[in-house]
């Protein structure tokens, strides 16, 4: 009996100890290291479920170690068959032939190299214990950020590769097309587009994934230039992907336009291929579009031309939608809110900057006047002459020229300088609102904004920020005409007068981050009543 009791007690003690250890281990907060060169080796998962945790591999650590011992990339990466200079991105192999083979390659080559190095009394990676590489939690956090190849970088690459004599860039260094018949890459002049039009997220037949394409393309070229002792871009992971290093990438302030024979101005029609069958959309006036200006607003063509540089409506965003365009029809493609790729979506997102949001986040948010359509879909200039009969480009130019990009308002004398708000003067003195000053400030804030200029050209439009739901006139109705007692059951969505004033003033001041008056400082606006 005594023995069994002892056993029982022993089991209990061991159990508690193990649990305590587990909890202790969980409670400790390690400071995790951030690295931009984390590569997870989990190739085997394409064959079978993984038997051990995947390996977290620090690429830069290995590159640096090799550099020190005067070894190069070829220590680990083999040359591709197609070209000697092009290295395979895989480790010590060109293809993933089979589970056992790939595993053997990793084990033999990694451990072999580590052994070799440790034999010469240098620090080396793990040699024996599986768990040292196959760790569940390596205690590292990836700080790897995708790098944007923006206009500035594009320009610097063109400049760097200019022929000294002709002073012309060699676009074919990077841009190429694929010849299906000859199974070869070739350069097609003025057909250049974003890499992403062809190189997708995953590798497809005859098409590398974007990840592979950029790593082999960029690094090979940088490496070659570096070997020739030329100034060149990064080779290591951190050079492109480390957040701090990205900040250090040189930026060209004024980037010249990328020349690819793209138009300066376009007249965007819904009915280019007029079929008569469906004239529903063709009723809208075409939109004169300043392509050149928009190039300047965006960093890459991808901002709008997200899938190709072809016409949006031809195959994908047809007027009624098509499978290729995920059934996003032309109307949506141009007007979908919240989507940066559409015209309206991008303009709307622009409204979120404080100078716009001051008004647009309260009364004007998500509000569109019926007259707004015609600001883009302009009326043809010449009466009785359909747009199509004129030269499109000329007409677009004329239309654009006729457009005024200036926010208008009434003459100073029509705008009261001060407004006294007396409605709520119970506890405090009436509020003196610097009415004209507020309008001037709002106008001043959007003075340089062309987009705002087009939409606020009409006099009285800016007044709508506060005098919402009222006619465009110098004599808007009083606030109290609509807003009176709060919580009126017949108008449940309408705030009372006190709420209406405060919500409007406070929201605007919050958005514009005005330090004074503070939203909680009652006497900043309301003077204490004299007793």
């Amino acid at each position: 009996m005594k023995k069994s009791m002892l056993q029982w007690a022993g089991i209990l003690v061991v159990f508690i100890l193990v649990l305590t250890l587990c909890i202790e281990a969980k409670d400790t907060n390690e400071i995790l290291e951030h690295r931009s060169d984390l590569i997870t080796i989990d190739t085997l998962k394409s064959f079978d479920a993984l038997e051990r945790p995947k390996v977290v591999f620090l690429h830069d650590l290995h590159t640096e170690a090799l550099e020190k011992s005067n070894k190069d990339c070829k220590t680990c990466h083999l040359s591709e068959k197609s070209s000697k200079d092009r290295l395979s991105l895989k480790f010590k192999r060109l293809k993933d032939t089979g589970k056992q083979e790939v595993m053997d390659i990793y084990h033999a080559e990694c451990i072999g190299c580590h052994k070799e190095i440790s034999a010469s009394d240098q620090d080396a990676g793990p040699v024996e214990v599986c768990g040292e590489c196959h760790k569940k939690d390596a205690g590292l956090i990836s700080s790897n950020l995708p790098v944007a190849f923006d206009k500035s970088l594009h320009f610097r690459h063109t400049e760097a590769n200019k022929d000294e004599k002709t002073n012309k860039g060699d676009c074919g260094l990077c841009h190429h097309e694929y010849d299906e018949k000859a199974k070869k890459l070739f350069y097609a002049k003025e057909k250049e587009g974003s890499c992403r039009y062809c190189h997708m997220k995953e590798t497809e037949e005859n098409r590398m994934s974007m990840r592979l394409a950029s790593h082999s393309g960029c690094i090979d070229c940088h490496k070659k230039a570096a070997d020739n002792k030329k100034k060149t871009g990064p080779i290591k992971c951190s050079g492109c992907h480390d957040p701090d290093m990205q900040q250090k990438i040189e930026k060209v302030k004024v980037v010249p336009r990328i020349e690819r024979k793209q138009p300066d101005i376009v007249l965007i029609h819904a009915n280019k291929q007029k079929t008569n069958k469906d004239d529903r959309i063709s009723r809208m006036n075409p939109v004169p579009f300043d392509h050149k200006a928009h190039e300047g607003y965006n960093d890459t063509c991808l901002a709008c031309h997200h899938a190709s540089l072809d016409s949006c409506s031809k195959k994908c965003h047809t007027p009624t939608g098509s499978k290729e365009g995920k059934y996003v029809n032309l109307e949506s493609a141009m007007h979908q809110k919240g989507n940066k790729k559409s015209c309206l979506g991008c303009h709307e997102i622009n409204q979120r900057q404080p100078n716009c949001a001051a008004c647009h986040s309260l009364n004007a948010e998500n509000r569109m006047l019926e007259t707004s359509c015609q600001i883009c879909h302009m009326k043809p200039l010449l009466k009785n002459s359909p747009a199509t009969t004129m030269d499109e480009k000329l007409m677009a130019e004329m239309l654009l020229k006729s457009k005024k990009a200036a926010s208008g308002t009434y003459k100073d004398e029509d705008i009261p300088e001060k407004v006294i708000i007396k409605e709520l003067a119970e506890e405090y003195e009436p509020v003196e609102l610097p009415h004209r000053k507020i309008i001037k400030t709002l106008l001043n804030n959007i003075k340089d904004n062309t987009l705002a200029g087009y939409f606020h050209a009409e006099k009285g439009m800016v007044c709508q920020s506060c005098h919402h739901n009222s006619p465009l006139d110098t004599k808007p109705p009083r606030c109290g005409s609509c807003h009176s007692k709060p919580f009126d059951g017949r108008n449940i969505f309408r705030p009372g007068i006190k709420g209406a004033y405060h919500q409007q003033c406070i929201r605007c001041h919050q958005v514009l981050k005005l330090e004074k008056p503070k939203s909680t400082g009652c006497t900043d606006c309301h003077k204490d009543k004299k007793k």
Partner: protein
Amino acid sequence: MSISRRKFLGWMGAAGLSTAFGSPVHAAANKHFKGYPDSLGVLFDSMLCIGCRNCEAGCNKVNGLPPPDLPFDDLTVLSKKRRVNTRTFTVVNLYDHSEGIKNPLFRKIQCNHCLEPACASACFVRAFTKTKEGSVVYDPSVCVGCRYCMIACPFEIPTYEYDKVLTPRIRKCTMCHPRVIEGKLPGCVEICPNEALTFGKRKDLIKIARDRIRKYPDRYVDHIYGENEMGGTSWLYLSGVPFKELGMREDLGVTPAPELTAGSLSTVPMVAGLWPVLLTGLYAVSKRKEKIAKIEQHQAIASTLEKANAEAESKLSKALAKAQKEKDAAIKIEIKKALEEAKKTQEKEGS
């Protein structure tokens, strides 16, 4: 209790009685108390709250509460995590949120006035009442002071006057019930400058909240806190960040508190009804066992006794027979002797 009944009715329906009981089954299955019709409530919009503490001051004034330690215009207390207590029926706390424009965020804490209040269902003297106006009010004249309501409240709202000897009371927000029935607004709502508090019929408040979410999808989290939490509350909340970040519990579920204990309470009549039968039965069984054992014992004793008697009797008779024999033999011998003697005497006399 409602669950079991629902199930029971469900089974009846499944058993083919659905045609006969069709509509009542349906009605019972969908029975869920959604609050008194046209009951009132308040919608708190954290995106409109500016943290001015006017509501705290208003509440203090209309409820005649003692003055606070720090004046209401001292906004530094906001960043402390305060709770309601016997001297404060409502507090506004500041919750830091890292995402630019939505920072800082405030939340007002007070009684949520549940549609089916936990406190009312927990009170064993019915000191709490859910009024048809929507507020949950407390009657100190019957309160015993057991504080089970404080255990039951998922929002940790009721507070207790621990320092009072003879008249300790539960203290909590009443949604200004006395003012509301006079047609006035609750103190906090009336004073709020920014209409961050909207007072009205609960069903309208839900419409207003939905409208705000629809109009400003980027600004609000698509959830009205209190619409279904703990079966629904009269006080509703809108927020720009997950409610958890405003210190509100998102794990309360939608079951009204009374339902949590209803199942257990429903077993009371069953126990009271069945236990006597069961226990008397057990007693009878054990009694009967005893009885049978006794009878068997008696029988055993009787039979052994009988046996013993019989044996004794046979022994006796044997002994008697033997004795008789011996007696007979002795008599014979005696007779013989006597005869012989007589003969002898005759012979003597004859000679």
